[in-house]
């Protein structure tokens, strides 16, 4: 726990992102950017976690994030993405989409380009709620239900899907280079194929019946058919895009809105979620090889629970053990969720092997049937009452920002 650094920053943080590092260099990220919301003057700020000699040796501030530079941002920062290591794209509550450049040598930020009313209503602003980019393409979504495609090097709009959604689109991510995924406020996960000219989604997946809004979506970095979403009720859903229109598994994670979900980019057996309830969870599925001693204990009772309580396409359910560790005046609660469920349709399972046919590639996220898989979750933050709005993980570094105006950085995440 000592490896977590907390810093109060006098602004409510809505987004936090690590600056990407080159894979070849094997280095840990050391710069991240934050965006604020609900302030009179909102800002985007670049921070350094102090790998530099300047602050490392003296006064015990080691690892304490240091402000590098900041820039005013019109409206709440609703999304923040790195276009490349020097440029970021922001989504604003005014509906604007803006590209900023971070000048590393003199620690300054300049505005590169702005699309002021990327999302709009005829006589009002429509907040832009999500951005995803794969340089030079930028895809944005908004409360106005539009999907807009920009190119960083072009003035105009590349493509618009009007009325893509009748309700608010909350988040967007790439599935493949030409396909994107959006989640909306009536619990639907839609897949769009840009190769088609039509303005209707290629696929709609949804939770049956309850229409619980989905707030975030992320795709498995290696196996593109595996997608995780989080919704208003705090449930973590894992979907298999290749089959069915319902989620593959549903896990109780948080007691309020899940704001972000992220697979670990290089070690996707790990997943991180954060929520309005003030918690940040680290999920870990262990691979088939290391069979846990915990399994025998919990699985039998759990399977009954699974099959009786949850509809048949939902295989996993967490059982929760709570260990209290009392430290000073903080409570650290470790939740251990051990999850597994016996397969109830063997045929669908066999279809799960990827094209390569290599069995070991079967993702542990979809191995509902194998009693060999287990899922463990750990609370990453000391007790918190205010919402954790955002998180980002890269390498061994995890950063998150809260409505309590604090940012937490953990540089030794066990992945």
């Amino acid at each position: 726990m000592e490896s977590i650094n907390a810093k109060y920053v006098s602004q409510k943080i809505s987004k936090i992102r690590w600056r990407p590092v080159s894979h070849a260099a094997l280095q840990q990220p050391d710069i991240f950017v934050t965006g604020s919301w609900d302030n009179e003057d909102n800002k985007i700020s670049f921070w350094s976690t102090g790998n530099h000699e300047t602050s490392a040796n003296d006064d015990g501030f080691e690892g304490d994030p240091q402000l590098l530079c900041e820039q005013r941002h019109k409206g709440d920062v609703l999304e923040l993405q790195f276009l490349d290591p020097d440029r970021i794209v922001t989504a604003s509550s005014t509906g604007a989409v803006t590209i900023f450049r971070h000048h590393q040598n003199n620690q300054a930020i300049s505005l590169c380009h702005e699309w002021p009313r990327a999302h709009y209503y005829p006589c009002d602003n429509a907040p832009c709620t999500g951005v995803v980019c794969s340089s030079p393409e930028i895809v944005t979504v908004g409360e106005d239900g539009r999907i807009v495609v920009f190119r960083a090097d072009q003035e105009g709009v590349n493509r618009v899907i009007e009325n893509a959604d009748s309700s608010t689109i909350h988040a967007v991510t790439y599935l493949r280079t030409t396909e994107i995924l959006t989640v909306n406020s009536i619990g639907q996960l839609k897949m769009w194929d840009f190769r088609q000219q039509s303005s209707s989604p290629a696929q709609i997946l949804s939770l049956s019946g309850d229409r619980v809004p989905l707030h975030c979506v992320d795709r498995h970095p290696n196996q593109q058919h595996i997608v995780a979403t989080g919704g208003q009720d705090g449930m973590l859903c894992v979907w298999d895009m290749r089959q069915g229109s319902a989620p593959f598994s549903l896990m109780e994670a948080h007691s309020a809105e899940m704001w972000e979900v992220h697979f670990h980019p290089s070690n996707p057996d790990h997943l991180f979620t954060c929520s309005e309830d003030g918690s940040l969870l680290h999920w870990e599925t262990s691979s088939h090889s290391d069979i846990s001693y915990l399994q025998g204990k919990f699985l039998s009772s759990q399977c009954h629970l699974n099959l009786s309580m949850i509809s048949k396409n939902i295989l996993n359910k967490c059982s929760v053990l709570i260990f209290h560790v009392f430290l000073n005046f903080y409570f650290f609660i470790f939740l251990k969720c051990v999850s597994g469920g016996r397969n109830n349709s063997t045929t669908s399972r066999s279809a799960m092997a990827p094209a390569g046919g290599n069995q070991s590639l079967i993702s542990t996220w979809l191995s509902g049937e194998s009693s060999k898989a287990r899922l463990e979750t750990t609370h990453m933050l000391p007790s918190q009452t205010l919402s954790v709005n955002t998180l980002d993980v890269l390498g061994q570094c995890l950063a998150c920002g809260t409505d309590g105006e604090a940012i937490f950085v953990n540089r030794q995440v066990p992945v």
Partner: protein
Amino acid sequence: MEEVDVEPVITNIPASAGKHLGFTWGPGDILVYETLYKASGFVGSGSPFIHEIRKDEDIYSPILRKLFNESHHIFVGLQTVGEELPSKNKKAQFVSVSKNYRSVIRACMEELQQVAVSTKSPDIATQYGNQVSILLAIELIWNLCEVLFIDAAPAGSVLLHLLDWVRLHKADVDEKAKEVLQSESPAEHRDYWDVVVSYILQGRLEEARQMLMKQAVLHPAARNMYKLMDSLLSKMPFYNPGGTQTLTEFHVKWSLWHEEADHCLQDNSFSSNKHLELICKILVGDEDTLLEHKELLSTWYHFLVTRLLYCHPTVKPTELHHYAQSCMTLFLESRSVPEPLDSILLAAFEFDIHQVLKDCSIALNNWWFVAHLTDLLDHCKLLQSHNLHFGSNLREFLLLEYASGLFTHHSLWQLAVDYFDHCPEFGRVYLELQIDHVPLDTERKALKVLRICEQRQMPEQVRSICKIMAMRALRNNRLGSALSWSIRAKDAAFATLISEKFLQDYCIRGTFSDLDLIDNLGPAMLLSDRLTFLGKYREFHKLYGEKRFSEAAKLLLSLMTAKIAPRSFWMTLLTDALPLLEQKEVIFSADQTHELMFCLEELTSSLNATPASEDRTMQDEDMEQTKVELLRLALARNLAMAIVKEGTVET
């Protein structure tokens, strides 16, 4: 009616002379504007400005925001400090909470200090400097309250705590000592003796001895004298609360030492060195000597603690006020009026908690300190006897004031929610009133506010938020969004209104918009009749599209017979039945056809009964007539076919 204790603060509004001012109360601030007072028909150009007067400027300081955020965390933790803990352990908990609060103040103070030093603008430097001195005073008072009220140390240990208190707040000695020690020859530094005496005054005898050692080395001739002083200092007994020694035993031991020191003074052991003699005089607690070193003591409470240390080390907490009063009078003789800080500290020494809180409320410009301190004291069960003439109790009153201040801030309002939660009597009412004022700029923010209301079961507010969002969506012609919001609020009337809009849209355009929503209504469909109809009608279209004609026909008929469809829509439904009637195979059975005919007759008779409205053109009338004719024909033909078919099957 109680008298007002202090003169009201006057704020000058920049307005032209002789004008009248009007004002309006806001949730936390006042709006002031010039009014036109027309006594004699005089019309002048009034000032176009509206002034906003904030009573609590501090919440707008970026650095103090950290204080509010961090202390919020501590506050929430304090509210849950184990009810199940035995009261003994609780005390330790409360002391640790108090220390946490103080460390937050200290951190904040240091940051302010840094900024004040590094800034180039003199205005900001003064502003921050003022804030530092306020925080310094707050921390001083808090620390004393912690010692006297929360920790409530018994005789003996109370003095040790007071010594720590003075040492912490008179830290300039350490800076001076550092300076002296870093010089080339510390013993000859001009501040050398000041440091030694300051150490003695604070009871830091070990450090004083080490300093004296440096001097002793320089003066081998006076070696014996230094040795004597050293042994005197080393022998001075300090009470050890954890040890086995009783207070009486300690007092006997201390008296012996005191006599010894007195003896040294009497036989002029130190008369050849005025510095050592001075130290000895301090050790025996000579009042005049102490008063001669006011600049080293700097405050009357330092004087008090030093005096207690060398005269009454076993002072009981209840006796403190007596000494405090006399020390203050002695020390402040020249100054006529004690400053607010002095009277607050004096009230604390008198164990008059309410006076402390009252004076602090008046002297300080924000509620942060009193609210948090009162809350902590209340948890320690120190405030029970006191009742207010208004509101619930002192703790709640102050917390509500503080939280209301926070709520007016555009960003800190979220913190206030937790404070309201812990005000059992009026917190909820305050929250209900204030939460309506939070501007809902984005859906994200609306969801956060909504979550706050839902968690606290505030249906009224939930409905109002959803309604605001639904209205906004409707205004922007986002029917799907509007419907989602009204479903979330379970607002049947509004859902009906929007369903109506959807149906109108359909009638005009012939297609449905927002199919992704309507197709997935699920159980939400049952919210209002009209919404049910919308969902079912769309289902009919789907069935028809999938060429499941008989199911579609059955659904269509049931929409009318079960009176789900509004009468005004029946014609459309019957028209929709036309293609089904015209199919080659028989879809409507004879019975169903009868029912359809009955619906049609009911509709036409009711239409005829109402006088034809004037704005209906002849053309419309004709159209309608043709439609009815067509329907009748189709129905008759279908009936014939159905009878034939059913008859055939029977035989």
